[in-house]
C-alpha cells in the first residue's frame, strides 16, 4: 500500500542561469504607519526596484478624527480646542487662523496689545515648531543628539506658554476677541532672554548639523521640487520658499499688524546643493527662526500696557455669509473656509485647507528614481504633521 506521504520522485526544478529569463518584479514595501521616520501615522506604500523607489503612494486617514464635521455641532468657542489638535506642534498659529476667521465675520476689534501679543506668541510657536522640525529631521537622518539640543530650547518656550495659558501643547489661548491671559513683565523679560540665547544656540545648530559633511551629503541635491512643481501642486511655506519663490503671506498680504514689522523672507539660495532640494528647505526653516526672533524683539519694543480682550457678545452668533481666511503657519498657508447660515450658534461648515496635505501629494511626484534612504530624507524635509493632514 502506498503511503499518503509518498509522492514519488520530486521533479527537478529547472534553473535558468541567464538573467533575462529570471522573473523580475517590483517589491511592495510598507513604510509606516508606525515607522519612526514617517512623522505620525502616515503609511507610504513604496514599490521598490532593489534600492530604487519606483512608486510611492501615501495612504492617509490613520489620524482622522472627523474634526470638520464635529465642529458643526459645537459653538464657536468650543471649536477652538479642536482646532488646537490640527497641527499639534503649532497650535497657537492654528487657533489664530480660526479665531481671525470668526472675528472677521463678527467684526470684532482686537486691542493693540492683544494683537501684538498674538504676533509674539505665534512667532514663538513658529520657533518651537521649527526647532521640532530641525530635531526630528536630524533624527530621521540618523543623528540623535541635535534632537535633544532642540528640545532643550523648545522646552523653554513651552514653559512660557504653560505659565501664560495653562497647557503645554493644546493651549486654548487665543480667544475670539483677543487672548485669554496677559503676559507679565517678568515673562516678557524671559522672552527677551530667550531670544538672546536662541541666537547663540542657532549658531551651534549650524555647526552641528547644517554644515556637517554627512548631513550635506544626505540632503543636498536630494528630493528636488522645481518652482513649476510647487505651483502645480499648490505648495506653500518653507517648501515653496525652499524652491526659491519669495512668497510669505506676512509680507505679500500682511494680516494683523505684520505690515509694521521689519523682517526678511528667507528663500532657498542653493549655496549647498540646488535650489529646491532637501537642504535648502531645511535651511530656510533655520533662517526663519532668526527672522522670528527679529519680529519678537520688535514686538517687545512696541508693547504698551492695555487690554488684551476686545468686546465680544456672550453668545456668539454669526451673520449669514462665508469667509475664507489664510495665515502663514510654520508649515505653510493654513486657511479656514467658514460658512454661517445666519443667526446660528454653530458653524454651518468649516473647511480646513491644510498645507501638509498639499505637500504630501507632492511625494509621489518626487519619489520615482530615488533611493529609499533619500526618500526618507525627502519625507522628513517637508515636515508634515499628520493631525493636520487627516483632520
Amino acid at each position: 500500500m502506498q503511503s499518503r506521504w509518498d509522492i514519488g520522485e520530486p521533479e527537478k526544478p529547472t534553473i535558468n542561469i541567464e538573467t533575462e529569463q529570471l522573473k523580475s518584479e517590483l517589491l511592495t514595501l510598507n513604510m509606516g504607519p508606525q515607522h519612526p521616520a514617517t512623522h505620525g501615522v502616515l503609511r507610504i506604500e513604496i514599490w521598490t526596484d532593489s534600492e530604487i523607489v519606483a512608486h510611492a503612494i501615501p495612504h492617509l486617514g490613520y489620524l482622522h478624527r472627523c474634526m470638520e464635521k464635529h465642529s458643526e455641532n459645537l459653538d464657536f468657542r468650543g471649536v477652538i480646542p479642536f482646532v488646537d489638535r490640527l497641527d499639534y506642534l503649532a497650535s497657537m498659529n492654528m487657533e489664530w487662523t480660526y479665531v481671525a476667521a470668526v472675528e472677521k465675520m463678527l467684526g470684532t476689534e482686537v486691542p493693540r496689545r492683544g494683537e501684538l501679543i498674538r504676533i509674539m506668541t505665534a512667532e514663538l510657536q513658529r520657533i518651537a515648531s521649527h526647532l521640532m522640525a530641525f530635531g526630528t529631521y536630524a533624527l530621521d537622518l540618523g543623528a540623535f543628539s541635535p534632537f535633544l539640543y532642540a528640545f532643550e530650547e523648545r522646552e523653554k518656550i513651552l514653559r512660557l506658554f504653560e505659565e501664560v495659558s495653562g497647557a503645554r501643547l493644546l493651549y486654548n489661548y487665543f480667544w475670539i476677541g483677543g487672548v485669554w491671559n496677559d503676559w507679565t513683565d517678568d515673562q516678557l523679560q524671559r522672552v527677551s532672554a530667550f531670544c538672546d540665547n536662541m541666537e547663540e544656540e542657532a549658531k551651534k545648530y549650524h555647526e552641528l548639523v547644517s554644515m556637517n559633511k554627512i548631513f550635506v551629503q544626505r540632503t543636498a541635491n536630494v528630493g528636488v521640487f522645481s518652482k513649476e512643481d510647487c505651483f502645480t501642486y499648490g505648495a506653500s511655506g518653507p517648501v515653496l520658499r525652499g524652491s526659491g519663490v519669495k512668497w510669505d503671506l506676512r509680507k505679500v498680504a500682511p494680516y494683523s499688524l505684520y505690515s509694521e514689522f521689519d523682517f526678511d523672507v528667507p528663500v532657498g539660495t542653493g549655496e549647498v546643493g540646488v535650489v529646491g532640494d532637501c537642504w535648502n528647505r531645511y535651511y530656510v526653516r533655520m533662517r526663519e527662526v532668526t527672522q522670528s526672533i527679529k519680529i519678537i524683539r520688535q514686538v517687545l519694543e512696541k508693547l504698551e500696557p492695555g487690554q488684551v480682550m476686545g468686546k465680544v457678545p456672550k453668545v456668539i452668533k454669526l451673520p449669514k455669509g462665508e469667509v475664507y481666511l489664510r495665515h502663514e503657519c510654520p508649515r505653510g498657508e493654513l486657511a479656514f473656509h467658514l460658512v454661517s447660515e445666519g443667526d446660528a450658534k454653530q458653524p454651518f461648515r468649516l473647511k480646513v485647507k491644510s498645507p501638509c496635505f498639499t505637500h504630501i501629494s507632492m511625494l509621489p511626484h518626487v519619489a520615482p528614481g530615488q533611493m529609499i534612504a533619500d526618500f526618507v530624507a525627502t519625507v522628513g524635509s517637508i515636515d508634515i504633521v499628520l493631525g493636520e493632514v487627516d483632520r
Partner: protein
Amino acid sequence: MSANFHETSSFREYFSGLLNGITTTVKGMWITFRYVWAVKPVSIEYPEVREVLPERARMRLFNDVQNCISCTQCAMACPVDCIYIASEKLPEGSEIKKTSNGQAIRLKLTQFTIDTALCCYCGLCTTVCPTECLTHSHDYEFSQYTIDAMKYDYLAPDVRAWRDRIVKA
C-alpha cells in the same frame, strides 16, 4: 548620498571633501563632548524631583459643590460633553443658602459627575462658572485601573475626602 557623487569627484575634490568631512564631524563631536562637563543637565528626574507647576496649569477638574448653583453653564460650554449635572427643586420652606460670593442657591444639586477620561482640559468650563467653584487643580497623578474609575462624582464623600489634596493652595 546624491546619485552623481561618485562620478564627478576629481582628485582634488575628493581630498578636500575628505578634509571637510573630518573637520565638520570633529566640530560637531566637540559640541557634544562639551556637554560632558560644561553644561548642567536639564532633565527632571520625575518621581524623585517634581516640577512646580505654574499657577494657571490646567490639571484635573475639581468642583467645590457647596458653592455650585447648578446653573449648567459648564456643561453647555464643554465641547466634549463630559460634565453631567442633575438638580431638583428645593423643598418648600427650606432655607436658601448663599455661595461664597453671595449668589443664592435655589436648586438642590443631586449629581455632579465629570468623566475625567473624556475631559480635554481646555478650561472653557472654568471660565463660564459664575461662582468660580469649578476650577482646575494641580493634581496630575490620577491613573486608574478601569476607565469607569475616572468618573468622579463630586458629591460622593470619598471625593470630598481628597479635596484638601487637590485644591489650589
